[in-house]
């Protein structure tokens, strides 16, 4: 019964050291970063205006808001879910603070309430999906339609102006050449990376996305984790909505139509698996910048937005294919 089993040494299937192997491993892991750097090099060759501080600052300004939403979306997709309501939630939050401020409410209180709206809508839509085991695709699709409708109702479909300068300064301001919104975006990305990597919440989030049943049977409160991921996503979407209102100086009911698709594209391009459990914020940030740089280079070259759309689609496919090839190589 207690016969000892002869311990076999594991067979070394491949060398784990050596310069080439290490280089290859990093290449596989950071292939997206490499493509991004290549793209920047190409950009600076085709357009002399690309590598200027003003242009880079512009790119950051344009991309930060979508970036903030994409970080929230990363949390949701890591749990194996999807949030289609972010565009509507962002528009709603941007609209409601404009209305609150016009009614004479304290600016910061209304900003806080706007973000709270995002938290609540995320928690409700995500919670519905998690606790009733309804696909999040459907609950958030309902949110996409319903919340957009509510935004139109609030404003009669017309923009609401009267945003105080304190807020509009944040939307357009720069600190030492770096846009305020860019600083907010990068700080949120860092916070999100820390939350995912170094907290029990992050650990449980990955576990839930990786194998929900196993996570639950290991004592993870998977439903609460999913609902929290949606709440975070809603909060960040609302924040992006508030910042857009700050930049446009009006609450715009038609803002951010189709934002969810941009965010999902960035997250998936960044290497996060749509099935959950794999990926992270770093990839999302690189992907957000990559998509922005593509758009920017085409702008600088004077190609119209029709070209941009086609090329963005093509680049997305190429990047995804390269990503998958590298991943399969790395897995072996």
């Amino acid at each position, binding site marked *: *019964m*207690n016969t000892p*089993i002869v311990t076999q040494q594991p067979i070394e299937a491949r060398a*784990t050291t050596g310069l080439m192997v290490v280089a290859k491993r990093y290449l596989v892991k950071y292939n997206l970063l490499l493509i991004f750097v290549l793209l920047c090099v190409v950009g600076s060759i085709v357009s002399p205006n690309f590598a200027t501080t003003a242009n880079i600052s512009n790119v950051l300004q344009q991309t930060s808001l979508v970036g903030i939403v994409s970080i929230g979306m990363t949390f949701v997709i890591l749990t194996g879910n999807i949030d289609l309501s972010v565009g509507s939630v962002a528009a709603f939050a941007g609209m409601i603070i404009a209305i609150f401020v016009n009614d004479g409410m304290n600016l910061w209180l209304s900003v806080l309430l706007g973000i709270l709206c995002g938290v609540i809508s995320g928690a409700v839509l995500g919670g519905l999906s998690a606790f009733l085991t309804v696909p999040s695709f459907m609950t958030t699709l309902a949110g996409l339609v319903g919340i957009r409708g509510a935004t139109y109702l609030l404003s009669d479909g017309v923009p609401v102006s009267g945003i105080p300068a304190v807020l509009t300064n944040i939307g357009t301001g720069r600190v030492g050449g770096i846009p305020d919104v860019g600083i907010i975006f990068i700080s949120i990305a860092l916070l999100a990376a820390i939350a995912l990597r*170094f907290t029990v919440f992050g650990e449980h989030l990955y576990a839930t996305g990786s*194998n929900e049943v196993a996570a639950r049977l*290991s004592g993870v409160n998977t439903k609460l984790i999913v609902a929290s991921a949606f709440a975070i996503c809603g909060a960040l979407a609302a924040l992006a909505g508030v910042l857009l209102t700050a930049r446009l100086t009006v609450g715009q009911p038609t803002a951010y139509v189709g934002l969810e698709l941009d965010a999902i594209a960035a997250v998936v391009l960044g290497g996060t698996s749509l099935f959950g459990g794999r990926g992270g914020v770093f990839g999302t940030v690189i992907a957000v910048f990559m998509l922005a740089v593509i758009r920017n280079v085409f702008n600088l070259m004077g190609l119209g937005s029709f070209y941009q759309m086609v090329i963005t689609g093509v680049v997305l496919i190429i990047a995804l294919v390269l990503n998958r090839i590298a991943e399969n190589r790395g897995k072996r």
Partner: protein
Amino acid sequence: MIDIRNVSIPRGRITGFIGLGGAGRSTLLSALFGSERALREVSLDGQPYDPHSPRQAIARRVGLVPEDRKIQGLMVGRSIWHNMIIAFNKKGFGTAKQRSFSKPKEIASALGVRFHDFSQLGGQLSGGNQQKVVLSKWLVNESNVLLLDEPTRGLDVGAKVELFNEVHKIADSGAAVAVTSSELPEVMMHCDTIYVLYEGQVKEFFVTQGLSAEDILHVVITGEVRNA
């Protein structure tokens, strides 16, 4: 619906549950682990024990190695390390990674889990090693009531023996171990007592000493005790 009464799972022993498929073996363990709704009147170490979720069961140091290793037990896409510490994570800042770095290592080497390094994905291991990782999860958590649902299913002969060697060690260290199996020889060889389940009820109770496989098998299949 199953109706199980008068079962006791003593510490320091391995208690076996045998029965045909659908006899209620898995349901019994799930009910004890709080992952299935049940009317329970159970006591654990003299205290009433009524877990309504796996979390509550885990807090009482109960652990379940589920029947379907790859679907319920292991996170195949996560590293060995993450698989081992998942049940140990408690609320708060800083993952278990920082707080108790040495423990999974000690347990992995004690169990003889064979792998290159902790960052290897759970799905890359062999069946036996995967099962050991699932078991380690509870040892890292210092669980001392272990519910093993068909732990040797799909393992090769060597891995089966090896796994049971470890289970014996765990029981010897004072843990209460419950094992379900559909293989009689295995249960007879390793368990101190055997309960036979038939259509959701405990039909017979055996102490594995000097009894014939035929007697047990008769109860397993017919649900009736053979009168000698």
